[in-house]
């Protein structure tokens, strides 16, 4: 099986998308006072950090950031055993508007797990969802509030988000598997 790889976002695209999302978050929530940004482990974590930083620069308030591992809440534990990541939410969730951050939304099952995990930490005033890429194919009634890029894909394709913090460079690829 061979793979065909095409780049769909570069570092500038990602930076602009995150800047726009940051503005949208502030606009929708009329400021950033009661916000908390929570990245879904693993690639959501650096994106959450970046969003919080941009929001802080725009609004001049420090927005708390956390990271959430959802492996214990997945609905496919019985078929596969995910490697457990880390959860660290250093602020009170109750009463805050939590913006969940994920790199790609696909079936929506990860977000469902993340909401369950978050509810176990307290009772947020609201949960909103920000994603860098929406690739479609939802299996649950879940829709992101903030989208960096809508990317129509087929189920055979894979979306590969690379981030400077982890892979050294900001890029998004579509990987197409082709039968020989």
């Amino acid at each position, binding site marked *: 099986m061979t793979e065909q790889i095409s780049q769909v976002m570069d570092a500038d695209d990602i930076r602009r998308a995150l800047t726009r999302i940051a503005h949208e978050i502030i606009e929708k929530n009329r400021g950033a006072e009661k916000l908390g940004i929570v990245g879904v482990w693993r690639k959501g974590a650096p994106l959450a950090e970046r969003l919080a930083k941009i929001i802080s620069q725009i609004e001049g308030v420090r927005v708390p950031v956390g990271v959430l591992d959802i492996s214990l809440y997945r609905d496919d534990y019985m078929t596969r055993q995910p490697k457990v*990541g880390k959860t660290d939410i250093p602020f009170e969730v109750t009463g805050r508007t939590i913006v969940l951050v994920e790199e790609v939304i696909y079936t929506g099952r990860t977000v469902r797990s993340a909401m369950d995990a978050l509810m176990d930490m307290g009772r947020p005033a609201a949960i909103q969802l920000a994603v860098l890429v929406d690739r479609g194919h939802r299996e649950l009634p879940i829709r992101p509030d903030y989208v960096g890029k809508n990317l129509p894909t087929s189920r055979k394709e894979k979306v590969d988000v690379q981030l400077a913090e982890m892979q050294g460079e900001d890029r998004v690829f579509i990987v197409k598997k082709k039968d020989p």
Partner: protein
Amino acid sequence: MGLKRKDILGLQEMSPDEIETILETALSFKEILTRKVKKVPTLRGRSIITLFFEPSTRTRTSFEMAGKIMSADVSSIAMANSSVVKGECLKDTILTLQAMKPDLFIVRHQASGAPHFIAGMVKESVINAGDGMHEHPSQGLLDMLTIIEKKGRLDGLTVAIVGDILHSRVARSNMWGLTKMGAKVRFVGPETLIPSEAKNLPVEVYTNVEEGIKGADVVNVLRIQRERMTGGLLPSTREYSRLFGITKERLKLAKDNAIFMHPGPMNRGVEIMPDVADSDISMVTEQVTNGVAVRMAMLYHLLGGTEDAVVA
């Protein structure tokens, strides 16, 4: 990545990778214990039976809490109240319980090898919660987790295990686990309480406590198991205390930042002096907390995931 095994019966047969997987998972599970809602849904619908043929509070409670935090259903059977007292043999007890369709057995038994016997007869997972003088893998793992947390590593450390080595499954599990992970292990105790096979094990034996503790990074003190002593091994507990009891003075021989551990229950004034037990370097309560996290990780890895086919 999951463990490719059905049972956890001892650390002797586990690979360093498997041990590391459990410890890493346990480390990330500790956070759950600090939450207000100490419950995750991962093991919902799975049932666990704890089967203790010997008295235990901390190990059984710790396994029960671990299972419940992971949302498993845990039933505990204390043998004193069971049909074993009516003469039922181990095999029939297991067959009866198995017919109730549990997913995992946690077994403590006074006979070495009893959990292995059960593991061989059932398709469900079995965890050894201590068998005779053989192994107590969850205690070995939680001790290693405690050391890693304080020292940042196991590789290259010197761990002195002091006391009744002969009767101690904790000493054996610690030895297998620690040496696999690159630590040096010393057995320290009176000659009558050191197993004769120690010369064939990967340990250094010391019969003088001062020499045994000297330069150690970790001093792990074992309980003097009076109930297992059939006489003649020790003149008196008072003499043991004088010659081998861990005092503040003796601990000064260890490395400056050494830590003290004890699997409990402690006999204060016998193997351990109260001022050490209550000091800053005592990890005793930390060990108990880590025990819950380690047992959560063991359950997690045994009860989940079939994608990597399980080979017993």
